[in-house]
Structure formats: C-alpha cells, structure tokens
C-alpha cells in the first residue's frame, strides 16, 4: 500500500489506517524514539501515541508525506516525554549527545521561549538548512533532527566518520554565526 492509499484510509476514518501505519512505519518511528529515549518501552509508548495522534490529525492536516509527518510527531512526543518525566536517563542516548553538541551553538546566548519568537527561530533554522549543500544538509538533519548516531549519519551521507564529525563541527560554528547575525544569540 502506498502513502496515497494509506492517507485515504485515514481520510475515510478506516481503522486499517493505523494497522497499515504500524506495519509500514513502526521500525522507522521506533528508531527515532529510541534515539531520544534510549528505552524500548518508553519508545514503544511514544510510537503508539504517534499512531493515535496521526489518527486524530491526518484528515485535517492532510500531510504531503506521511513518513516525515509521522517522524515529526514521534520526535516531539519522545522529547516531551523525556522532559515531562524529568528523567536523567537520556544520558547515553543519541539525543543527549546531539544536545550536547548543540549546546556549543547557543552557549552564552538567550534563546526565545515565547511562541512567536520560537516560530521565528524555526523559520531561521529552515533558512539556514536551505542554504546548506546537500551533504551538509543530510548530516545536519540526520544528526540533529533524527538524532541518528554519527556512525549512521556518516554512512548514509557517504563519508567517513571523521569527515562527518569535522563537517558537523564546522556546521555548528556556521549555525552559531548565523543565529548571531539573525539576532537570536546576543
């Protein structure tokens, strides 16, 4: 079944949509959740929550790409779960490692928490990523959106780990400069 047909099941409120989503995307969603939570049970719960969120939102949102739509939902649900529980178990996960790297970007700055400013930051990040050449964009999104490990990200970016690490380092510096220029880091 292709995405178009699957989306149609959602639109028709056919519960096979959830079953088919599980069949097609469970592994993909579990991987994202596991990178953030590092706990299979928590990840499983997040993925289940994602199915329900999709059931409730797909007809209205009408996403173009179901995979990325589901990926964004599960990513945020996993992050929310981690924060809500205020657990420290995130140490040792790829999410924790990615956050540590991102802390270099915003060190000493004050990031916007208000909704409108947060949206402006989101748009700035989109602009930044759009300026990146393909290999750099792949690295950035893989590491900081999907929280894939350095090894995995390097592999599907077609470069060595050391090269990926070096490029990510430069990207973080570039992002810091960009955010400064945009006024997000004073």
């Amino acid at each position, binding site marked *: *079944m*292709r*995405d*178009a*047909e699957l*989306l149609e099941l959602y639109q028709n409120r056919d519960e096979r949509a959830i*079953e088919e989503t599980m*069949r*097609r*995307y469970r*592994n*993909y969603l579990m*991987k994202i959740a596991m990178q953030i939570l590092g706990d299979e049970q928590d990840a499983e719960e997040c993925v289940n929550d994602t199915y329900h969120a999709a059931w409730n939102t797909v007809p209205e949102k*009408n*996403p*173009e*790409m*179901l*995979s*990325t*739509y589901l*990926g*964004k939902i599960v*990513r*945020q649900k996993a*992050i929310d779960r981690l*924060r809500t529980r205020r657990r420290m178990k995130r140490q040792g996960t790829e*999410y924790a490692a*990615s*956050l540590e790297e*991102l*802390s270099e*970007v*915003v*060190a000493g*700055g*004050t*990031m*916007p*928490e208000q909704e409108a400013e*947060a*949206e402006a*930051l*989101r748009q700035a*990040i*989109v602009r930044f*990523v*759009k300026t990146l050449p*393909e290999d750099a*964009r*792949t690295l950035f*999104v*893989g590491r*900081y*959106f*999907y929280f*894939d490990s350095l090894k*995995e990200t390097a*592999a*599907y970016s077609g470069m060595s780990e050391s090269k990926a690490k070096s490029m990510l380092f430069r990207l973080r510096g570039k992002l810091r400069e960009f955010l400064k220029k945009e006024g997000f880091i004073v």
Partner: protein
Amino acid sequence: MKNEELLADAIGGLDEELLLSVNRKRDMEDTNKLVVVKDEAKTEAKRSFRKISMPLTACLVLLLAFAVAGATALVRGLNIGQTDEGEKTVEYVPDSYETVPLSELTGDVVNTPATMKARLIPYLAGEAVPVDGMEGMFVVETDAEGQEHTHIIGSDDDVDTFKVYSFNVGLPGNLYKAFETYDAAEAYIGYAGIHMPRLSKATEQLGVFTTGLMDGGYMSANADSTFHLLTTGIYAGYKISNTCTAVSAASIQFGDQYQSGPTIYKDSQNSTFTQETRTVGAREFSILRIDGAEGLNDVVKVFWSENKVEYRLEIFYTPDDEAAVEALITEWMNAFPS
C-alpha cells in the same frame, strides 16, 4: 528549558521537503530493504492457508504487491542475516535505481495515464465499476473504453491472510490488462530491453500491471488531476502441480519517484533462508530459498536484472515438487536471449 533544547525544538520544525531527501538516504541505508521478520500472530493463519497450497492468484498478488511496494528497485544482491534479537532477515540491496525514459516506449502503455484519468472521475463520484467476472481473488472489470481492470478480493480469511501484502488495485492509478501471448504483452509495453522468459508451461494468467502516480495525491484529487507512469511489468502465472505454483515477472520503472517505507516480507519464524548464485552464460542469477516449517509451502525466488528490467521468478511448492522446481528454475534462467 535549556537553550539547546529550544534549539532542538526549532530544528524539529524543519519543513517536510527538507526532511524528505534525508529520509530517502536513511531508508536506503537501513529500511529500503526486504526484511523477513517473524510474525507469530499471523503464522497460524498463514499456515492454515498454505497447507491447502498457494493459489496462483495469491502468488500473483504477492508478486504484484512487492513490485508496487518496492518501486521495482533493481536487485542484485541478497543478504541474509539476523537481528540482535535473533530474528532472521533477508535484505534485497539494490545497486542502483535505474529507470527507463518514457521516450523509449512504443507501446500503448504510454496511454495508460489517460485511462487512469478516465477512471478517476467515476472514482471521485464513488461509482462502482461494473464487474465482469471473478477469478480467484480477482474481480475483472471492464470500463467504458474496453479497458480491463482487476481488483483483488477474497473471503475474509483470504483478506486477513494477505493483509500484509494487500494493495488496492481498485485505485485509478493501478491498471491490469490481460494478454493471450508474451508477444502481445511485450508489444503493449513496447520497450526494446524487455524480454519475458518464454517457458514451455502454458500460462494460467498473463498480463501487464501498470501503476501511475497522481499529481497531488488522491487526497486532493479532482477532475483536473493528472497521472504519470511509475512502473509497469509483465506478470505470468503458472500452475506446475496441485501443490506448486509459480509467477514470473519482468518489470521496469520510470522517473525518479520513490515510495517511502520498507518492503517487509513476513514469514514463519521457523523458516530457514539460504541464498546462492548461479551462473548461466554471462548472467549471474541470485536465488533465495525460504524453507518453510512443517506444513508450510517452501518458496524460492530467483532474481536477475538487465537493460533496466528486473526479472523475478517466484515458486511456491512442497517438498514433493522439488524436482519440478529445479527444472523450472533452470528453464527460466536459460530462457533469456543469448
């Protein structure tokens, strides 16, 4: 909230178009593979069905489903492995995604987007297409232009058994057209590089299955929507014995469309998987054998790709059919032009 968490949240709002290309690479790395995983819940249903023997139409369903789900990625390598949890896996790893330019086609298949479009209007209106007859799990329909369409149906048990493989050929973007001869099927496609292996056994079914993508997707379908071709292929079904059926296929894909999501082949956790290569002339065929547990059919799949055409032979059989299966594999591999 910490600064880096706010930044991570902002990155979480990246546009889907920015994520898509990375998704593709991630898929190619670890999910765009055929994975055989155990599925205890469905094993009993599958077992009870397979004990009867695999109906030919069901075999064709499996093959068609794979062709659609896998976007006919050209397959040259088979990797058998196992997960950390001990589950056996089989990965079909494509060398590349080779596509055929539409300009190289001379057959009527190039006109199928118009037929797909013609079917869209009644589809949007929710009108049922008249049913001409039933053949196993198929319903054959003919539209006002004389174009045959085949929909997969079945009893509740059949539907449940094959749910994991199911796909909807009732959508306007999926067309099946039956043919009497290999020549006619090839001519309908009109691609010089395609050569369906001619087997001595008469075909029980022979047809061309074509898929098309609709711009904007079905969710936004309207009378102005258009289709473009995605895949087409010739599928031939054979009944070797009462317990042995086979499907041979030759398929090609167009453009650079990509259908996300893994292609998952589910089988009994008790099955075993072996692979081999066999060379005939200049061709090296990949062979995957899935030996079912007691009471299940065994399966053998043979792969070859050439001239941007993916060829596949799948045979479902019981141990009593082994001699016939080996003879069929040999005949199929020798049926390609020298």
